């Protein structure tokens, strides 16, 4: 990589241990992908739950913080943590998990990181704009910011996103480059979903068809512009099923006002996707009528999703636990508008600052006896199988009904 004077000084250790550690990591990654140089970034977003970090990752963070010779140079925020400290006992989480979380938070704070603990920063903190180079973690954040906002980010794992925060730059490769943002796969949908689970399922199908990180689907045929929450489920599932970092919706997303703008006119329609495909994806997860727990998470719920959920909870009494997970930015409004009270009056629980699958999901399953899980998140069903769950995908209304009856209709 071609380095400027400041970057060479960082690499030589002239700007401290923290900067040198960060840029060494970035150069290694940049060289792997053939990056020619660095590009300045304006924001960083770090995925760093302690189930992922483990003791080793937390100690790596503490070594950086203990050096006391560097902090983040740009606004740098965090993805959900591995717990909601106020509800940890109810989740069956052990003290050692909370202690590890506290140590990670302390190290991040000493490095100047803002603990926003959200995977919906594009709805709650500050959305990246078209052409803005950023270093975002959480695949859902990246695919939304790239596609809906027109921002430029690769999937930046925790170490790389933190490094970008500490150096104020990231290697220029992948989705920072114009050439990578052209469509590579043209798809046509014959049906426009309504429910969030259907948007997620559609995104999952597109992700599976795309197949890998470097494919950029362009999608035609929607009969209306989706809402932010719909695109949130659509993109998060696509990124989860397909490792997809950018999609274009013709006439909706900013880089694809016309099909030709992203080169889609030169591609054949590779596949048509209809309602039957979305239903088939749901059926593939429908393996048991009984459920142990209902979870709304991944991504964290917006204020509007919580409003909808609260209305569905009115007048019900749940037999099974129902967990609704949101961000620390949304939770106060959820409380203030009475949504929390209405959800919890039915027997549900509103959690803040965590995400279900990032919160020691395997240990929660063992501690609480939660195995058969109903959710309206296609992303969540795609993840939880590896954690030993039997995840089932259904509408929010069907999941709420399942919490009341114990059965998913």
């Amino acid at each position, binding site marked *: 990589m071609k380095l400027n004077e400041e970057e060479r000084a960082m690499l030589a250790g002239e700007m401290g241990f923290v900067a040198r550690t960060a840029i060494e990591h970035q150069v290694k990654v940049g060289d792997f992908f053939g990056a020619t140089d660095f590009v300045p970034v304006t924001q960083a977003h770090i995925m760093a739950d302690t189930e992922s970090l483990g003791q080793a990752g937390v100690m790596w963070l503490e070594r950086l913080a203990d050096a006391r010779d560097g902090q983040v140079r740009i606004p740098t925020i965090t993805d959900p943590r591995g717990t909601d400290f106020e509800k940890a006992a109810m989740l069956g989480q052990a003290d050692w998990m909370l202690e590890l979380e506290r140590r990670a938070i302390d190290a991040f704070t000493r490095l100047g990181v803002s603990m926003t603990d959200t995977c919906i920063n594009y709805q709650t903190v500050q959305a990246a704009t078209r052409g803005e180079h950023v270093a975002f973690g959480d695949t859902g954040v990246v695919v939304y910011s790239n596609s809906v906002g027109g921002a430029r980010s690769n999937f930046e794992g925790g170490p*790389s996103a933190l490094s970008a925060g500490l150096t104020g730059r990231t290697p220029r490769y992948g989705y920072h480059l114009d050439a990578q943002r052209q469509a590579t796969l043209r798809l046509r949908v014959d049906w426009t979903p309504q429910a969030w689970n259907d948007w997620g399922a559609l995104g999952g199908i597109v992700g599976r068809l795309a197949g890998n990180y470097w494919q950029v689907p362009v999608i035609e045929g929607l009969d209306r512009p989706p809402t932010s929450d719909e695109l949130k489920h659509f993109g998060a599932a696509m990124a989860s099923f397909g490792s997809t970092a950018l999609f274009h919706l013709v006439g909706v997303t900013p880089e694809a006002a016309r099909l030709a703008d992203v080169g889609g006119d030169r591609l054949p329609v590779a596949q048509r996707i209809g309602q039957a495909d979305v239903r088939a994806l749901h059926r593939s997860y429908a393996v048991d009528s009984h459920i142990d727990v209902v979870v709304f998470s991944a991504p964290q719920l917006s204020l509007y999703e919580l409003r909808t959920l609260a209305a569905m909870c009115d007048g019900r009494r749940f037999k099974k636990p129902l967990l609704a997970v949101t961000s620390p930015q949304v939770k106060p409004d959820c409380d203030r508008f009475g949504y929390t009270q209405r959800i919890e009056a039915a027997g549900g629980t509103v959690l803040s600052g965590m995400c279900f699958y990032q919160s020691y999901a395997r240990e929660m399953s063992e501690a609480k006896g939660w195995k058969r899980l109903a959710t309206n998140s296609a992303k969540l069903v795609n*993840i939880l199988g590896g954690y030993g769950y039997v995840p089932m995908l259904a509408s929010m209304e069907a999941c709420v009904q399942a919490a009341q009856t114990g059965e998913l209709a």
Partner: protein
Amino acid sequence: MSSATYKARHGMGRRVVAQALVAHDGFSARYDLNRLQGVFSRPAHKLVGQSYVDRVLVLDTAKGGVATAWMLHEMRSRHMAPAAIVFNTVNTILAQGAALGDVSMLAGFDGDITALIPHGAMVEIDPEARTIRVLEGAETPPADGPARVHGPR
């Protein structure tokens, strides 16, 4: 006995000799593994139930979320990591995770590398040369035993 050698477009890490675990399937440490037991745990994964510890994973593509960037480092700290990972198509997260976790990696081949490397074969990974070489081609199930890693870890 075969000595077939395949060249990758991307390479990172140090030279490794170990047994290959091969499948035309994706990979995410979060989605696919029981990292405590060191086995593939996702029921639909083609390697479900098999130990990945000290093996060279030869897989189609990197999948899923960003957690693997931390998880390879965590797995390495407990000596429960794969010796190397070889992909037809890598994503940024796996490369970032390999950089932090000191896991050798190759990616990007002219053919389908999961069809070219026999499951269970001993292979040599040379990231500097960006090559994977089959040392023996017999399709034997992976046996226990550590990988040989050349250079300090």
